[in-house]
């Protein structure tokens, strides 16, 4: 009886704990240790350098620029995806023939492989043969350089990110709309609320939880976006799309500064954690 009460619960949770230890705690500790080491030609022989890599970060322009770029990329993409996803959810929250098929079509970008999607968009962005410039020209606009210019490259990748992320937002908001009680809407309508007021003052507050959850997921995803950027630009041109993740990868696997690359990824991890905790704090205080 004693055994059952004391040990049995631990036995029951041990598989979960083991999985966590193997796939979360071990890599995390490894990353932290790696960021305090200087590796030469071998990961077996290294020297401990303490926090040297972290002290170098503020003086590294690629890190500072990469940090800003990461925040701009994430912020812009999340705002875009939230707006587009919410609009899509409202459009699909109706009953008309074929709506189920349309919904399925709309979630295709979310379930497609990021690398395949990026390759497809890369073709579309081609300044000479891409369909996007063809469309621009057909309505009398100038061709854009898209990924080829440092002025437009980051925005172009954000378009792809928004295209891939908005179906996720749509699904969550749609679920929120579907589970929304009809009474508050009806009573607001009886009180004379117009459609805009209905949306702003009744529906939106009731969707707050769904929107906040979707935004948190997307913030985390976009802060650590890698495949789309790597496939489309590898951080160029002129490092205009080099986010922290891309810089960390280049350091670690192209220049073999494994220690410094790890330090940058630890900083990125901390940023993701701080933003997530802050966001959840706002939720708990009902500010979101």
């Amino acid at each position, binding site marked *: 009886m004693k055994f059952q009460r004391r040990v049995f619960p631990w036995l029951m949770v041990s598989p979960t704990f083991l999985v966590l230890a193997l796939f979360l705690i071990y890599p995390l500790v490894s990353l932290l240790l790696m960021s305090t080491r200087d*590796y030469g030609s071998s*990961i077996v022989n290294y020297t401990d350098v303490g926090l040297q890599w972290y002290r170098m970060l503020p003086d590294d322009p690629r890190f500072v620029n990469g940090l800003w770029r990461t925040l701009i990329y994430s912020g812009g993409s999340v705002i875009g995806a939230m707006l587009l996803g919410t609009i899509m959810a409202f459009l699909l929250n109706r009953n008309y023939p074929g709506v189920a098929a349309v919904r399925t079509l709309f979630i295709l970008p979310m379930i497609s492989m990021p690398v395949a999607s990026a390759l497809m968009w890369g073709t579309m962005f081609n300044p*000479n043969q891409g369909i996007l410039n063809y469309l621009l020209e057909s309505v009398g606009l100038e061709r854009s350089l898209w990924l*080829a210019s440092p002025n437009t490259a980051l925005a172009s990748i954000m378009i792809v990110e928004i295209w891939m992320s908005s179906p996720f937002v749509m699904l969550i908001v749609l679920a929120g709309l579907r589970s929304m009680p009809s009474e508050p809407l009806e009573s607001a309508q009886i009180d004379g609320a117009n459609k805009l007021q209905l949306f702003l003052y009744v529906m939106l507050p009731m969707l707050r939880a769904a929107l906040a959850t979707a935004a948190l997921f997307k913030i985390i995803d976009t802060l650590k976006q890698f495949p789309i950027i790597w496939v489309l630009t*590898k951080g160029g*041109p*002129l490092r205009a799309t080099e986010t922290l993740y891309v810089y960390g990868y*280049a350091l670690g696997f192209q*220049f073999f500064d*494994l220690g410094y690359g790890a330090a940058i990824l630890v900083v990125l991890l901390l940023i993701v954690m701080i933003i997530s905790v802050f966001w959840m704090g706002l939720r708990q205080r009902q500010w979101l």
Partner: protein
Amino acid sequence: MKILFRIIPVLTFVTLLVLAPSVIGQSEFDWRRYEGTQLRGIMIQGPWINSAEPFIEEFEELTGISVDLEILPEAQAWDKIRVEMQANNEDLDLFYNQTSRFGNEFVDNGWVVMLNDLINDPSLTNPDFNWDTDFPDVVRDGVAFDGQFIGIPTDRSLGPMLFYRKDILEEYGVEVPQTMEELGQAARELWEASGNSIPGFVARGQGAAATSAFSYVMHEFGGLWEDAEGNPTLTSPAVLEALEWYGSILRESGSIGSTAFAFPETTNEFLTGNAAFTIELGVNPSNVANPEVSNVAGLVGYSVIPLGPGGEEARYANPCPPLRPFALSINPFSPDQEAAWLFIQYITGFEPQLAYLQSGRVAARQSPWDSEAFSDSLTDDARDYWAAQSISSGFCPGTRGFAPPSIKDTGRARDIIGQVIETAIIGGDIDAAAALAQEELEMLRTREQAGN
């Protein structure tokens, strides 16, 4: 007469005695001594592995060794090879080595087996391998580091060429350019004359990947990566002039999007008919004629790269520094190095090298070049190609490779230089970008010299 009868058997016996070792050596070379061994290698997607793949099965049947090759895109392969080396991975046996890029670094880090002992061991080296006689000196020197061979070359590097669309030039009445100035002019004219529908010139523009194509142009302008003391020379007038030319021709003849182009994109752009000129060496008669990848079969002309302001003098240095080719190398951490050596010998033998040559690449081994099988297989297109290539492969600029050879971390050096090339294409401040890159290269070199 009697004496003759006595001498003949003696002579016959002596002759047999002299010939016997080589005959016995050939028939008795034991290909099956490592039967049952499994080899793993990392190779780069591209013409070499395409032509070598059919011979792998033959090797497996001959030796009983099974070979598992991971064939990856260039950048991914380099990353993976270096990661595995850094991890001292015993599971990797051999790899495709771009010695111009990784030679110094791999030798310095002890990441490659020196092959001299294996080559000189008659029990491990097939007598038909003929390392000393069938691989020309220039090829063997290319893989020699302090007299030690770090790989067996598959290639002699291609010389710089110009590929052009004969039909487009004819349609718009443009002559094949003989100088860099004429090439720039022709490319811009074609872009304009075609109503901005046919980019005049396409070449690599994506950061580090662009340094190889740019180096050919730089040499024609009389520029070098470094001076005699090994100091980088990115801000020299010749290099700056070459950067200006390279950037402006791409920008002004319809290929500004080339900042996203490395080897596959550039080759694809030309083969799918979207440019009039290119200097991309990924183009060759074999893929031009292949309808699966090419829309320009029969329409491509071949010439040496146009002469730049550096003149003939810039093309030939004496003595000529070694040209580092692609080669097959063995991982020093592998427990199956001798089995890997058997594979390397086989796959760089006559037949695989002939197939490689016939696919339009410059095979390292000499005998395929001299074979009837090769000369009989040449199409008119291929004859034009080889006529131009035979001239340009003789060019020898003062510093070779795709980054300053004195810098060991070629990857980082190429990344730094790539930023200047991108700046030139986009139309930015080349002088400022080159000055910054020069400073970064000098810092990198100083750090390396200090052992950091």
